[in-house]
């Protein structure tokens, strides 16, 4: 790991509410280069919402986002991409009716010198990236609709890594996948980590991410229960944080921690 002093991402006291309901309240999380941080919690704990603030899908009501120690303005997905933040969404946000190349370059199409789409170059690059990621992938000319869940997922991941992401957000990256494809995603995460990319893994299932993550943040009812290095806590202790909000000795308590009477 590189410089440990300045976090790649620091989200400070982030709050966001929808119609009076506090989806996220004063949440603070950080991420260092080459680090995998898991954000855990039940469905509705606010973890996806928090991370969508970072990816630009939602606008925060309060708090600060620092990228490399500097305040960042993230108002929409385009802003986030400017900071090198790429997101792979739980819902596999792909356009079903166009092919893999069109999806990979969606919003950032390569163009020829006449300003038209350079489909040939885009497809050639797509073949190269997909060849590295998923050598079995062959169906380049077909709409993404015709692909299996795993193939669609590899398209979504390829899109994120194609543009030299520095910060990768993966929201339930393996929810739609079989065991073999899940293992592939695990290998990919390790590879990206070696390249110095910071990765947020969002999951409600601790078993998916515990072995991959360096640190875990646990959220409950929109607040951060606490965070810990995975080497300092056990899976059961983290489960206790998720379910009860009980913070074990190895972890740092947050605002959402259970008050000990």
């Amino acid at each position, binding site marked *: 790991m590189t410089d440990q002093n300045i976090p790649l991402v620091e989200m400070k006291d982030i709050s966001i509410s929808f119609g009076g309901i506090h989806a996220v309240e004063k949440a603070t999380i950080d991420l260092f280069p080459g680090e995998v941080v898991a954000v855990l919690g039940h469905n509705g704990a606010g973890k996806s919402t928090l991370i969508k603030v970072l*990816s630009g*899908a939602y606008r925060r009501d309060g708090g600060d986002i620092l990228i490399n120690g500097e305040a960042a303005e993230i108002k*929409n*997905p*385009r802003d986030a*991409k400017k900071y090198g933040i790429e*997101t792979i*969404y739980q*819902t596999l*946000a*792909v*356009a*079903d*009716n*166009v092919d893999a190349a*069109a999806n990979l370059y*969606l*919003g*950032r*199409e390569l*163009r020829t010198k006449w*300003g*038209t*789409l350079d489909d*040939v170059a885009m*497809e*050639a690059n797509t073949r190269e990236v997909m060849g590295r990621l998923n050598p079995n992938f*062959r*169906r*380049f*000319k*077909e*709409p993404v609709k*015709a692909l299996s869940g795993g193939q669609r997922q590899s398209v979504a991941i390829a899109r994120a890594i194609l543009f030299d992401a520095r910060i990768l957000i993966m929201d339930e990256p393996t929810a739609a996948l079989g065991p073999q494809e899940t293992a592939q995603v695990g290998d990919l995460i390790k590879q990206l980590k070696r390249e110095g990319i910071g990765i947020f893994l969002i999951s409600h299932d601790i078993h998916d991410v515990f072995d991959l993550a360096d640190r875990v943040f646990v959220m409950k009812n929109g607040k951060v229960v606490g965070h810990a290095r995975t080497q300092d806590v056990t899976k059961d202790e983290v489960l206790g944080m998720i379910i009860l909000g009980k913070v074990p000795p190895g972890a740092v308590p947050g605002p959402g921690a259970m008050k000990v009477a």
Partner: protein
Amino acid sequence: MADMTHSTTPHASETTTTARPEGNLVARFFRATEIDTRMLGMIGALLIIWIGFHILTGGLFLTARNLWNLSVQTASVAVMATGMVLVIVTRNIDLSVGSILGFTGMIMGVLQAQYLPQLLGFDHPAIWAVALIGGIVVGGLIGTLQGFIIAFLSVPSFIVTLGGLLVWRGATWFVTSGQTVAPMNPSFRLMGGGAEGSIGETWSWIVGIIACLAIVAAIVNARHQRKRFHFPRRPLWAEYVLAGVGFVTVIGAVMVANAYFWPINIARRYAEANGIPWPEGGLQIPHGIAIPVLIAIAAGIVMTFIATRLRFGRYVFAIGGNPEAAELAGIKTRWVTVKIFALMGVLCAIAAAISTARLNAATNAQGELDELYTIAAAVIGGTSLGGGLGTIAGAMLGALVMQSLQSGMVLLGIDTPFQRIVVGIVLVTAVWLDTVYRARAK
């Protein structure tokens, strides 16, 4: 699902696709030529309609005269259908196109018949162009306004354009308090076809030859690009078949257009005006391709280019496929929507120019019910109301199908109310077939 992966191996040799003797002859033919079966179905339906009417009318339908008229009558709706494809692809609808056509037509009529002659002088050579540009600007502004309300004020397009249907039709009336404006400027009238508004025999052949060269260039270029990146290529014979079909279509169309001669009175006047002696058997001057048809084809080519070669077109289809994904990918989806409707407005104005020029007048009722023909053309042409699917060429072919039905019924002497019943039934059937097709495709 057929195995589509066999030919995508890198460095696929020339014969990979043919070396696979799988399926019967017909299936292999379609796979090799990569012809879209849906498009083919539409062409089949068109041929059935044409031959059916030809038999029913006792040989009146498939004549040079009728086919030439059919092409001119199709032009206006075909122009609008090219834009309606993009509208429907993004899961919107535009019910106001007929009224925008009426309004912009009236604007162009008033400009060239009342205002511009006073301003520029009667018979000024630029009158037609200024009137046309004026109409296009107004159409674009109307479309922009409607698109803005749809995209930024989040009013459903169905409602905005339903309102537009009433507003612009009402506005048409207000321009002249309901009076018809006529006649149109002689240069402007060329856009409507007729004997003067056709390009004649020689130019028709030149256009035909250019079209044939373009077909060859497109096939050679596509093949070259596929070769460069080791994509699978069609077998050579399939390329020849496609080129052959293209040639026959183009040359056939030119021959038909050249086989329809000027009406005898116009030819006689022309002969007198140019001092040509009137021959015994009459003077046979071929019409050639009509200018409105060329305008429609140009609109089709430009719109196809926009839809398939530009970023904007890519975004249109991505939004239609998954609006949320498009938004998350950083596409400014609202501005794309505004642009689509602005483009639709411009196309309505071009269609209005064709139709006012053809009628030689701008009337209150111009373009009434055209929204239904336009939507029907797009849907029959394979544009899916579920969004994300559709082609410009298909929609133009759809317009030809609708107009063929209409003309055929007129030739058969079927009353207008019954014609409308048939058109309504065809529209519903087309959407039903689209639903069936999409359910199968899953």
